[in-house]
């Protein structure tokens, strides 16, 4: 028995080595001309051929070693995992569920203390470096982490959760979701600059406006399915953007709307004056408070989205959405009005897009059509697909990875050590981003969390494997 296993191990390594050599050869063939040589100009403006054998060797080695690791370790371990998975007991399943509950509770707690955690850590680092305890130093440094990471990621989490209602639950492929984000942003921007209405009044209004636009879009596209629906929603998104660009009298066109009022905390403005937030609470003046306030605001909005989604899934309407995704004809045969069901999905998703939009306007203080291009829709959709359609946690992870990842890539100065000094990580950001997406989709075709949680149960709540759920046909 042991003998057989040992020889089995040997053959795995042998096979992996073979595959590694093969992968190395392919990489060599592919990159020989592309990477191995480079044309350059010398001082006399002559074209010279630079040979870069070292770099080529790195490429080939990465391919070969990567293939070896994959074939020797990853594939066998995944097979073993699959085997083990097929015979997990109910107890183990229950275990995993409670683990999942702990993880999500822990994640939630982390989200709540995140800004203070960042401040504390930065202060400690500062303390270690200078030997002086200064809380304020942490406060100033935290700006980047709270704003660029925290708020940015949470905006996308919220948008993706909103889109998840349309795409993940109802199975309607919407490529123009950013239009509702734009409607929300411009509703707040215009109504607050022209009429001086407060953020707290305009926040729900922006949601309602966006929902109305969701219905307006919903009506004509209800008959369409799949690809056609996707194309029409895409067009709708572009129309909204073009209207924003060209209706210059109202929207100021490409200049955008600037000087949008900030949100207030129960009437306390975040200004430097004597009535401002810092003065009221006796704190030193800093822009960080507003950011931290915005962080909690978007955290609240995102959690509201999650809460509503979770509640709706247990309502008849949420079940009807999922049933619609599974089989529209069967839905109609059960007396479900699929028209209104689709419209409510569109409207609900759009409403959360509108909330996020008005938040965005309040955060930036400036909106222009450039923020609402198709790429945004694509990124939000990619987050939903990557996270696993319908799964809130998966989507949150996907948003953190994708948005946090692109932000991190801005900072990857150490890559210069590998690729030379003229390497600019920002330029490769999108490339790495795309590669990461491909890897995830190959590795987990149904997204990070492909399993579906049932909305009701009789005996026990069992997760439903992604092989049974459908993605919808539009």
């Amino acid at each position, binding site marked *: 028995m042991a003998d057989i296993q040992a020889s089995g191990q040997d053959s795995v390594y042998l096979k992996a080595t073979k595959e590694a050599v093969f992968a190395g050869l392919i990489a060599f063939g592919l990159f020989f001309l592309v990477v191995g040589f480079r044309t350059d100009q010398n001082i006399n403006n002559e074209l010279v051929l630079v040979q870069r054998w070292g770099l080529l060797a790195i490429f080939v080695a990465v391919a070969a070693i990567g293939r070896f690791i994959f074939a020797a370790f990853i594939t066998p371990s995944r097979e073993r995992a699959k085997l083990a998975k097929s015979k997990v007991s109910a107890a183990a399943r229950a275990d995993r569920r409670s683990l999942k509950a702990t993880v999500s509770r822990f994640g939630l707690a982390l989200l709540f203390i995140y800004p203070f955690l960042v401040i504390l850590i930065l202060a400690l680092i500062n303390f270690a470096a200078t030997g002086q305890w200064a809380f304020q130093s942490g406060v100033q440094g935290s700006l980047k982490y709270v704003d660029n990471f925290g708020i940015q990621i949470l905006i996308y989490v919220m948008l993706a959760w909103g889109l998840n209602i349309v795409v993940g639950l109802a199975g309607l492929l919407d490529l123009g979701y950013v239009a509702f984000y734009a409607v929300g942003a411009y509703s707040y921007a215009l109504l607050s600059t022209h009429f001086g209405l407060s953020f707290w009044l305009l926040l729900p209004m922006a949601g309602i406006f966006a929902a109305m636009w969701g219905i307006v879009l919903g009506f004509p596209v209800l008959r369409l399915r799949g690809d056609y629906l996707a194309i029409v929603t895409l067009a709708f998104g572009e129309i909204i953007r073009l209207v924003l660009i060209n209706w210059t009298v109202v929207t100021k066109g490409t200049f955008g709307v600037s000087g949008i009022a900030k949100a207030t905390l129960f009437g306390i403005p975040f200004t430097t004056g004597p009535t401002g937030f810092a003065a009221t609470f006796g704190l030193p003046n800093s822009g960080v408070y507003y950011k931290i306030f915005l962080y909690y605001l978007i955290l609240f909005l995102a959690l509201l989205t999650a809460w509503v989604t979770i509640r*709706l899934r247990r309502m008849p309407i949420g079940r009807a959405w999922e049933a619609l995704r599974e089989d529209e004809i069967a*839905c*109609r045969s059960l*007396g479900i009005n699929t028209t209104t069901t689709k419209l409510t999905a569109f409207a609900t998703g759009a409403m959360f897009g509108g909330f996020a939009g008005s938040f965005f306007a309040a955060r930036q203080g400036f909106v222009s059509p450039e923020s609402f291009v198709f790429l945004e829709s694509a990124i939000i959709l990619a987050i939903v697909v990557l996270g696993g359609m319908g799964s809130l946690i998966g989507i949150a992870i996907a948003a953190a990875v994708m948005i946090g990842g692109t932000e991190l890539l801005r900072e990857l100065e150490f890559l210069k050590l590998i690729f030379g000094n003229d390497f600019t990580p920002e330029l490769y950001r999108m490339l790495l981003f795309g590669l990461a997406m491909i890897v995830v989709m190959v590795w987990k075709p149904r997204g990070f969390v492909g399993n579906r949680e049932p909305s*009701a*149960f009789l005996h026990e709540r069992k997760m439903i494997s992604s*092989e049974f759920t459908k993605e919808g046909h539009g």
Partner: protein
Amino acid sequence: MVSEVRNNPNAVLRVEHLSMKFGGLVAINDLNFEAKRGDITALIGPNGAGKTTVFNCITGFYKPTEGMLTMTRDNGETYLLERMSDFVITKKAKVARTFQNIRLFSGLTVLENLLVAQHNPLMLSSGYTILGLLGFPTYKKAAADAIEKARFWLEKINLVDRADDPAGDLPYGAQRRLEIARAMCTDPELLCLDEPAAGLNARESAELNQLLLNIRKETGTSIILIEHDMSVVMEISDHVIVLEYGTKISDGTPETVKNDPKVIAAYLGVEDEEVVELIEHAAATGSDDITAAVDLLSTEAIHEIEVTHAEPSAAPLISTPATKAAKAAPAKPATAKAPAKAKTVAKPVDPAIKAGATSNALAAPRGGKPDSLIVIKGIGPVNERKLNEHGIFHFDQIAAWKKADVIAAEAYLAFDGRIAREDWIGQAKKLAKESQIKPAAKKTGGAK
């Protein structure tokens, strides 16, 4: 027939002059029948007879070309189904259905499937979601009731243990039962089942019979079912309607339908000649013997059914009669009516040519080789065979048709106006000319 259909307060569903055309194809042709309240009505017929199309018209998935479908609910309200859209029919007129190819929500659990079916009452009790979202107790109670109702049906179909598994994970027979339970969760007064026993083994189909009888007994739901499995049809139905090529060819109790020579010919694929022979024989020996002869033939046929059904394989009866029916010459109304008429049938111009043939019919193709009539657009293999049976083998024969011939041909092809519309005569003339020069190219398919 129509007057008999009308003025019957007992009917839960009245179908009057129902016609459904898909382009040139007449899927249902002036169908009249009624389903009595509390009855199990079976709709049978060979493949492509238009049974599913009838269901699609009843449940609003197709808008009928013509006709009236009246649903009378237990409380006396009547609904004209042809004017309502599909989901309203289930919601208001209380007609539920299942599908020939199972349509469960495979990614939802068994329980959720049954909860989705209770969408409309739950929607009301959740105050169109708003009250439910705010956590009002009315919805909580309604949701608990809905789960109880689902449990009730799960017990009936023996699936309580699997309530939390995805519906797509169930075995085929269980999926069929679940689909019926799901339809029942909409509280229907008329349940339309499209081949519920298809793909079930003998034991499962016996259980299905029990389930259906039980449903009727406990809920009083009237049932219309399409079925190829004769053991289901004969055992549980009170009333059988037989369709062939969209036309009703028989209507009555299982006993009478079983013994109807037209049904035997159409459904069991007995060759037309046999029936003609039989009727001839009956006519010759006196009318009393015809029943005996028909009985003989039908017992043979029923025996055949039982033999096929007893086979251990799960393959239902469908295949056997269907292929047979396809092979068999389509029954013409003229061939099997009363013995008195049968005489005229039995004496055609030529023994090989059928009744109602056109004037220029031939006994056999000239030179023993018929033209490939399917080259004409609008003639498919089936029609080609029918034409051949009526002595039409060559393009020039069709080319020479007069108005009366066209009418005669349309009568036996069960077409109206199609020959003129598709200009068969013009096409045939051209082809006849060509075939004089060179033999017509072979064509495998043809417009059906």
